[in-house]
């Protein structure tokens, strides 16, 4: 489903102290099967978001293949990839209603047929917000906003869902509730999920697989429980996991 084959991403970073440009290199090799739910963790700045941006197509790799649905998409624009992605914030357009925000996933022109309008309501009911169609994002709570963004990515019918710390701004209880919802949705729609998280608690166990990234490369790729095995002590120490 998602294969990253010798993907190299070079970028230059301005170093304010030396006032010079430092070149950094990241390289990824990765294989994720259809329907898997993967959590991506690692220190900040390690390259977690870069990995997601490469898969979504917001940045292009210097070399290597990004194979999505058996097709190399390394140079395909984001709108033509089988991928939808959500961010920590700014997922909704504030001056559009809930229904309009979701409808953008069907047609950017917002001119929907009757069936398509019904589809919007149906998908909103899947995330429990069918009553809020006429409201605006600023009238909603943080959790509700993310549910609507989720509804929009569902209506796009794209088999890969990427989440870049989408629930980090929510409180603990709500975060677990949202994770349940995501798991449920991924199963119902048979989606492949990759989610960046900075939480290393019980939520890890909700995923089939955990990928740890450090210094622009994958240093651990196994099921979450394996993190606590003695063989992976260095990784656990890097993440400051408590056994």
């Amino acid at each position, binding site marked *: 489903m998602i294969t990253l084959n010798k993907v190299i991403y070079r970028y230059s970073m301005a170093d304010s102290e030396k006032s010079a440009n430092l070149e950094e290199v990241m390289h990824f090799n990765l294989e994720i099967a259809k329907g898997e739910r993967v959590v991506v963790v690692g220190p900040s700045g390690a390259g977690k978001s870069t990995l997601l941006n490469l898969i*979504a*197509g*917001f940045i292009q790799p210097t070399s290597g293949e990004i194979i999505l649905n058996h097709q190399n998409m390394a140079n395909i*624009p*984001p*709108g*033509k990839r089988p*991928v*939808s*992605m959500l*961010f*920590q*914030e*700014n*997922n909704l*357009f504030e*001056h*559009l209603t809930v229904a309009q925000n979701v409808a*953008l*996933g069907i047609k*950017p*022109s*917002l001119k929907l047929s009757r069936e398509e309008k019904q589809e919007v309501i149906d998908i909103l009911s899947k995330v429990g917000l069918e009553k809020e169609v006429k409201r605006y994002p600023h009238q909603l709570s943080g959790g509700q906003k993310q549910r609507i963004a989720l509804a929009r990515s569902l209506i*796009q019918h794209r088999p890969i869902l990427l989440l870049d710390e989408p629930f980090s701004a929510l409180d603990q209880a709500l975060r677990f509730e949202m994770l349940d919802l995501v798991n449920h949705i991924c199963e119902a729609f048979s989606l492949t999920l990759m989610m960046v998280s900075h939480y290393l608690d019980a939520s890890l166990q909700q995923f089939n697989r955990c990928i740890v990234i450090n210094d622009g490369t994958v240093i651990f790729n196994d099921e979450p429980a394996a993190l606590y095995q003695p063989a992976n002590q260095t990784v656990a120490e890097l993440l400051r996991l408590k056994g």
Partner: protein
Amino acid sequence: MVPIKTLLPGMFAATTILLIIGVALSSLLIFAWHTGNIAIYFDAYLWHTLQITCLQAALSTLLSILAAIVMAKVLTLVDFRAKSLLLKIMSLTFFLPSLIVVTGIIAIYGQHGWLAKICHWFGLDLHISIYGLQGILLAHIFLNFPYACQLFYHTLMAVPSEQKKLASQLNFSHYIFFKIVEWPRLKRQLLPTALLIFMLCFSSFAIVLALGGGPKYTTIEVAIYQAIRDFELLQAIVLAGLQLICLFLLLVFSNKFNKNSGLNISSVPDDYKLPLSILGYVVTIFILTIGVLFILAPIVAIIVDGIYAFRWSLLTVPLGLAILYSLIIALGSAIVTLLLSLLLLWTNSRLLLKNCLRSSRNLMIVGNLVLMIPSMVLASGFFLIFFPYAEDPLFVSLLMIICNGLTALPFILRVLEIPMYDITRQYSHLAQLLKISGWRHFSIIEYRALKPLLVISFSFAFLLSLGDFGVIALFGEQSINGYSVTTLPYYLYEQIAHYQSGAVTALTLLLLSIALMIIIDRNRTHYDHTK
């Protein structure tokens, strides 16, 4: 209660301002009262003037805004090395002396301008006269469009990169993205910007005088000037009254819409751009090139023509005198502006701190009163009272210092008002504990903390006065005996009006302005860093 000691500086400044404006206005009114029949001046000419004034201002505003939106959009699509420099230049052309704008426009689009020369080289003969409505519009667009453009650009750049990423994932076209994401953000800024441009074009003087090409295209401001020159003083008063009413209405109107212009210009590095097709890229580069040429060509033309025309023999005594007068008058009016604004804001900050909102607002209205009263009205008022002294250089210089100082006041108040209040509030308790007050408070707290801002304000007031061509147009005309005051803009206007080459004069004025703008920019950067 607010102690009288804190009220005194502001009261003093406010009284001075009211006195000056009051004297000028009442001299106009008394004169009108004594002369009687005003009705004869409410003729077709008056309405024609009003119509033309509104028409050219409306067209200038519309075209400037449209060009600004297109150019701002184009700028968000591509990155290039000199982009930040270009944006800086764009935010500064707004403050170029209007006669520099006139010279630059003539140098490019005039009969012997660069455009005509290039067309001639290609075998085309271009016979478009720059004088008339087209010249006025061109100059007004040149003056205002870059300023509006960089405002819009910062608004567009404030769109969160997440939303741009979502847009490209949702397959938005550039048109849809503009309609759904960018337009709603621009819309909030559109009306205040348009009103500002409209107001400036409405009371435009030098550009219309130099490029209007006769009485067919005249504005109220120019008509006042011509009425005074023809000694039709009563007509001048009617026109001045009309101008006053129009500006008052515009100000009331703009205050109504200006409530929420609190823009949060965040400089978050943008890390994503919507994908651009090859055709889109070509169109973008094409528009960008035209825009950059339009902005830079007149400035470059002044520099090149100035250097090309330079002869030592052109450094005449009149030019030297003009430079000297300009610098003295600009220095004087910058001091007046800074002094008045510091006195007003000293009291204002303390009133705000004591929660006396109404008194603070009244004080600020007095400071901004000059916005409503164009310098031509002010000058004509003084002209009537002090007509006998109109040939005394010392008196004319003093009058210009006061008029220019007052004209710059609202702009400087806008720069200093919030920082002055913030710094007073921030150290209010500390200053009380350490018993720092009065002059010592100013020298220890305001002066040291806000030094870059004070330099900016001073240079800004200096620049505005340096480029002013309003009051001097009235009083400079009396130079029969050759001992009268001339400033650089006046000298330049004389040369343009007599179809002489003003290249060297224009270059001098431009270089002085650029030097001031560099000082302003340096201190702005310095201030932003220390904040």
